């Protein structure tokens, strides 16, 4: 094991954590989850003694509604967890992941909004499974011709797919109503104690809690999937597709599964997003977001769920937080303008110096290290 050869402080801490009794670890996890649930509440910060006003920049993002930022971050985390199945577990490059997100969101919008051209007013809850199925089918349609081929074709076809979805959505006379978009998408159901609807327009907190719950469920599912026969097949495909095929793994079938499952998570995320936003148009799904999700997975460390979560949280939350923080320290810096540029640079640098990501999956890190050791010595170029 090359990865454990040089144990850093982080690795030591991880070791100590995994040596603790199971009860302690469960309690720790539960505390962490509880912390995420109370994070958007204002009283939490007042309780901790942060001054209320524009100055409390500990977690809070001062320039935008904190609960909304948390919701967006959670959307990103869920997308990263979904994309991680494709990029991290199976090692396929899907550049059009946002396309599936858009398909999910538009499916929900078309089915639930009275203003859509289909003119159906399904409840949100009924539309979500349909959205998931539709995205899975679109993933299979896209994957069947491309997954049989070399992996790099997949990258360009998925990139084209996302762009085509956007181009189609931008058509004003099309089903998706272009820039005018589809308004009046229905909210998730559920009354509060006093009878008002739980999921309203103003308060983002219930949506954040909803998506947080979904994330937890998906993470459990993913962890089990990762350890199952399917997960082992994915890792085998990532490490060496030909060898896996020879060993009897039906690679095409499992690649298609990975693609479909990844797409389904993307569609589910889109469905939740549409339910909160109540209005989506063609500008909601820009290509650069696809790249941001990819950056999130790479940054965190492809191949591990933890890495995807941390990467997703960092790519969305950090720029938002910095917008407020920069203002406080007197630096007016529009992070949205530079976001893609910075993350693009990070991707390039990471791929060279730390391809395993910030929170590496141990197995994936070992793969990279092994490959590096196997590197054939380059012929020397006199001019260098």
């Amino acid at each position, binding site marked *: 094991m090359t990865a454990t050869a040089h144990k850093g402080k982080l690795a030591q801490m991880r070791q100590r954590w995994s040596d603790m009794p199971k009860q302690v670890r469960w309690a720790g996890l539960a505390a962490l989850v509880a912390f995420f649930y109370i994070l958007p509440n204002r009283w939490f910060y007042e309780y901790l003694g942060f001054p209320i006003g524009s100055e409390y920049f500990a977690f809070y993002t001062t320039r935008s509604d904190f609960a909304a930022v948390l919701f967006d971050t959670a959307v990103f985390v869920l997308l990263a967890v979904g994309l991680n199945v494709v990029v991290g577990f199976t090692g396929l490059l899907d550049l059009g992941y946002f396309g599936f997100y858009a398909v999910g969101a538009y499916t929900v919008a078309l089915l639930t909004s009275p203003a859509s051209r289909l003119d159906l007013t399904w409840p949100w809850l009924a539309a979500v499974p349909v959205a998931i199925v539709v995205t899975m089918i679109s993933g299979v349609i896209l994957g069947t011709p491309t997954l049989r081929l070399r992996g790099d074709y997949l990258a360009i076809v998925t990139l*084209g797919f996302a*762009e085509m979805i956007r181009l189609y959505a931008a058509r004003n006379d099309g089903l998706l109503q272009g820039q005018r978009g589809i308004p009046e998408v229905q909210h998730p159901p559920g009354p509060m104690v006093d009878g008002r609807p739980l999921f309203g327009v103003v308060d983002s907190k219930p949506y954040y809690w909803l998506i947080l719950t979904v994330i937890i469920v998906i993470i459990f599912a993913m962890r089990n999937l990762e350890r199952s026969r399917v997960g082992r097949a994915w890792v085998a495909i990532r490490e060496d597709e030909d060898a896996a095929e020879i060993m009897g793994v039906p690679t095409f079938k499992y690649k298609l599964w990975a693609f479909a499952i990844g797409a389904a998570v993307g569609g589910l995320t889109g469905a939740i997003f549409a339910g909160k936003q109540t209005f989506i148009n063609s500008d909601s799904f820009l290509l650069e977001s696809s790249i941001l999700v990819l950056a999130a997975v790479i940054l965190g460390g492809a191949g591990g769920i933890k890495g995807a979560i941390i990467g997703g949280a960092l790519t969305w939350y950090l720029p938002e937080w910095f917008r407020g923080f920069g203002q406080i320290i007197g630096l007016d810096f529009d992070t949205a303008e530079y976001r893609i540029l910075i993350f*693009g640079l990070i991707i390039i640098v990471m791929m060279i110096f730390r391809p395993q990501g910030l929170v590496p999956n141990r197995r994936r890190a070992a793969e990279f290290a092994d490959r590096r050791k196997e590197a054939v010595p380059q012929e020397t170029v006199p001019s260098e």
Partner: protein
Amino acid sequence: MNFAEFFGNFPALTITGLEQGAIYALVALGYTLVYGVLRLINFAHSEVFMVGTFTALWTWEALGYNQNTAAPAFGAMLVAVLVGLGAAMAASALTAVTVEVVAYRPLRKRNAPPLAFLITAIGASFVIAEAFGVGTHRAPFGMPVMIPSETLFTVFGAAVTNIQLLVLGVTLVMMAALDQFVNRSRLGRGIRAVAQDADTAALMGVNKNRVIMLVFVLGGLMAGVAALLWSVRYGYTKFNVGFLIGLKAFSAAVLGGIGNLRGALLGGLLLGIAENYAAGLFGGDWKDFTGFVLLVVLLMFRPTGLLGESLGRARA
């Protein structure tokens, strides 16, 4: 479907298609060359093209032309266009080589998996595009009119302009020159050798890194020519102008058989024509879909393209 429009404009659609296809073909050459040698989709190539268009624009502005100046006289025009061509080719080639040296070469040294290359390529593409986007405030730029369009003759009722003739002519000349270079020259033999079997070629004394560099230079030069033709023909540019062109050029390269130089020309022209026919049949909105649909259908039925994949002839 609008058959009346389609058949009525059939010759005009064909000519426009050939013209646009020629530009796709020139850009496609860059994808094909790099793919043939490195087996890598160089996503950053679309940005190499974009850099070329901006260089042409800035060169002309430096020479004192802008959107409002009248088209220059023939002699001055020739000088301006040639200087612009040189600058665009140089800038594009430089961009391509920079990406190679900064992003891809360190990965090759570390024997990184193919996925890492692809991700880096995407990152490089976005860094270049966004750097220009930030620097130019994401505004579209109009270019000075260098060659005023005039109809030279008509074919079956369709007018053929001097620009269309220029675009097609230059493309064919560049294509022939590149083809001869790769097939006849000593350096070209090196490219073919590395494409066929990099390790054996290295054992035979071919300097692999130099060949790879050369491939990026050649691709960049072709993209520079395409960028100048684009500037003369369409007269505008924007930081993301490369994206759609790149996607289509890549589709063209796959259509003709990626790794195959002649295939890139054939694929480019076919794609250009198909796009314009689709626009005539279904309406202009559907034009951009054609390349993508064609790509997916082709991958389903003939993944090696029309002419097959070969830069070094026989490949396993």
